[in-house]
């Protein structure tokens, strides 16, 4: 229904504009340029633009989405409690929305009520499933908050060093490089441990990304750079706790999670300390903070599934000003700079008769869903399944231009070190070194055109 309306709308727009402009300005292959999420595109550029449901849901599905929305936005509390029971005893935050503010990217601080940065932790090596090795007494994530009278696992300290660099034309920019340390450990860790910072990512379009066929993603992989373009995207294959199988990793900054359901269940368990049928063991099990309550799973399946469905059915904001000449020039420069070799403009979701909302959609996530070596500067040096210590998943860029509005002021990259899109670009390295150099060589007006284009996403 909505798709037809949108197609109808575009036809009208094109028809109206054709009356006073030359048709060549609107080649047929760009008609859907602004529909970043296909039929699951929302025409909204306000601070709430990441919170729109798919338009074409049944009334029952709308209801489930609403239930998920409410759970997503409300706090959980320490057990026992009549409702929303089971927070902690150790956790990173008390609600989904506390990190994913307005369903958007988080705030790169740790320990405060609205902090959205967490630290993954592990020992060197790989576990039986090929994943990171849990640290005794800590697991795979540092929970830096705790219920009253319980001790957080550690305090996460973030320190930045600032350095000024220059583009080729002499204009300067500043990058801030973070250092992460743990203090106030509740129990010592023997030997070396690896840390990886992860900022709460935007929630938009996840259902669409989940619906892209594995074959389409893998087809873009070039792990040995056979085509010699300097870019060697790899698919991450990860052990999935829901299916108990190795699957293609799609979500998370290192694509270490296979499905939205697993992502949601893991976030409840690790970020908030809530057990579910998928992860029924408390994150604090075996630790001094463990509550010894026989209340697991704390989260009913209906609640878990409602939040999963909510995450699955958040629409993608439409692009703005797609016909603007500067934006179109910026897009061409983005293509010429080979940014699109990883930030792939277009993917198509698979046919799914059981879930028409995500079926057979042409989408523009600006991501290939693969992991790439991004160089030493961004490296966490903590392998996560097939993603090595310098690899990160190509972040989808849809919605990028709205970060500042949705999450004023907006931060970028896996740990929010970049305060602007320019900084995010200039942190690129490794497989993206050539593209970064291309951007740095551009004149100011061309750089601005690229930024204006990115701001239209």
């Amino acid at each position, binding site marked *: 229904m*909505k798709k037809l*309306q*949108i197609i*109808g*709308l575009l036809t*009208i*727009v094109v028809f*109206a*504009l054709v*009356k*006073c*402009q030359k048709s060549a300005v609107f080649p047929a292959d760009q008609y859907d340029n602004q529909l970043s999420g296909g039929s699951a595109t*929302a*025409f*909204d*550029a*306000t*601070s*709430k*633009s990441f*919170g*729109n*449901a798919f*338009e074409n849901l049944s009334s029952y599905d*709308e*209801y489930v*989405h*609403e*239930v998920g*929305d*409410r759970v997503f936005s*409300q*706090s959980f*509390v*320490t*057990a*026992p*409690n*009549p*409702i*929303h029971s089971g*927070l902690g005893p150790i956790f990173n935050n*008390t609600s989904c929305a*506390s990190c994913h*503010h*307005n369903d958007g990217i988080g705030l790169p601080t740790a320990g405060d*009520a*609205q902090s959205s940065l967490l630290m993954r932790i592990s020992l060197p090596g790989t576990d039986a499933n090929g994943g990171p090795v849990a640290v005794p007494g800590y697991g795979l994530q540092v929970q830096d*908050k705790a*219920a*009253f*009278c319980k001790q957080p696992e550690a305090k996460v300290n973030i320190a930045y060093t600032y350095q000024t660099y220059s583009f080729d034309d002499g204009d300067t920019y500043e990058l801030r490089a973070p250092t992460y340390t743990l203090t106030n450990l509740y129990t010592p860790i023997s030997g070396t441990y690896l840390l990886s910072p992860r900022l709460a990512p935007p929630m938009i379009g996840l259902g669409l990304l989940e619906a892209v066929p594995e074959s389409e993603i893998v087809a873009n992989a070039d792990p040995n750079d056979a085509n010699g373009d300097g870019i060697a995207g790899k698919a991450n294959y990860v052990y999935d706790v829901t299916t108990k199988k190795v699957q293609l990793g799609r979500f998370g900054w290192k694509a270490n999670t296979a499905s939205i359901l697993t992502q949601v269940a893991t976030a409840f368990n690790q970020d908030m300390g809530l057990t579910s049928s998928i992860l029924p063991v408390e994150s604090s099990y075996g630790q001094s903070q463990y509550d010894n309550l026989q209340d697991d799973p704390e989260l009913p399946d209906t609640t878990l599934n409602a939040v999963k469905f909510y995450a699955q059915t958040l629409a993608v904001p*439409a692009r703005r000003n797609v016909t603007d000449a500067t934006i179109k020039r910026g897009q061409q420069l983005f293509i010429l700079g080979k940014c699109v070799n990883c930030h792939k403009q277009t993917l198509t979701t698979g046919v799914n008769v059981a879930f028409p909302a995500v079926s057979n959609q042409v989408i523009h996530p600006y991501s290939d869903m693969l992991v790439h070596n991004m160089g030493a500067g961004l490296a966490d040096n903590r392998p996560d399944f097939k993603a090595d210590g310098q690899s990160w998943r190509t972040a989808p860029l849809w919605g990028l231009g709205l970060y500042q*509005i949705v999450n*004023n002021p907006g931060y970028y990259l896996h740990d929010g070190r970049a305060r602007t899109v320019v900084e995010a670009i200039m942190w690129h390295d490794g497989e993206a070194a050539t593209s970064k150099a291309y951007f740095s060589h551009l004149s100011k007006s061309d750089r601005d055109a690229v930024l204006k284009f990115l701001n239209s996403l």
Partner: protein
Amino acid sequence: MRTKFILALGVLGLAIAGCSKNNDSTKTDTTTQTTLEQNVLTDFAANLANPNYQDIQAKAQIMNTAITTFNATPTDANLEAIRVAWKNTRGAWESCEGFLFGPVEDFNYDPTMDDWPVNKADLDAVLASNNALQVADIDQLGTTLKGFHAIEYIIFGVGSTQKAANVSARDKVYLASLGESLYNTTTQLRNSWDPASGNYTAEVVKAGKGSTTFTTRQAVFLALVGSMADICNEVASEKMQTPLAAQDSTLDESQFSHNSVTDFKNNITGVLNAYKCQYPGAASGHSLSELVTSKNASLDNKIQSQINAAIASFNGITTTYEKAIYSQQNQIKTVQAAINTLKATIEGDLENFVQTNIKD
């Protein structure tokens, strides 16, 4: 859930307008309209947002005074005075949720003051501990241990059964600091808009003329209209629907004070305030309603009558919301339908109006 899918006619209007030229008479119209748009924004900040935030702060101060009085003389009458002050502060707060954008969300003043539910297990643990319970200590606690609902829990109790004699010495210390902490947040919220302080007012007033938040006037109008639709959705589809659907009164927001119906009604009154640019005790100003009337009087009539109908529909619920979810389900559904009708008009006609008519 929010559904903001652009309407074909709006875009058609924009598209066609993009290739037509103004003649002299439309130029005059444009000047008049631009002036009115500017006046609406200026007055939204001056006659609604700032007075509303000032009022929340003033009422939080009155509540603090009532807490101080109660703690010195813990009678049931003085406890009741805190309850009245709590409801008054709550009323001003719920009203401002009719336009929930800007610092209130950017700086998380909303969850800091109004998180839910209360973390009773931790609250009991805090009271049983040797924590000093001073304001600085409260500020270190999670948001489910402070704000409106933690205060509500102490002064009303489960089932609204609290008695002055049952408020312990520790409760009183905690209550005083909770009140002070809430007041501090209301002060931050007020200052964030105050032209003499954080001056978010300028971001609104200078929309399209140097505002970094709103690069066009249309953007701020869309934010305003979007926030009006949001609260409709939150009230009808979330706050009212969740306890109703689950048949569970513990899912009700202001369950200790039995104040939820008033909360809901004040939320929708906030929508009326936002649309009409009015606030009790403040001068009325140029409003979105006036802007709509200037182009489409029948749409203005429709919106006003739907807002008023939604507010009036609450009169059908004659008991507490905790009871109504069992005994007055049809009345609840009538309210939800009235709010959903309003929401559809705001998201459809009104947003389309903004898209079509506010072009700068």
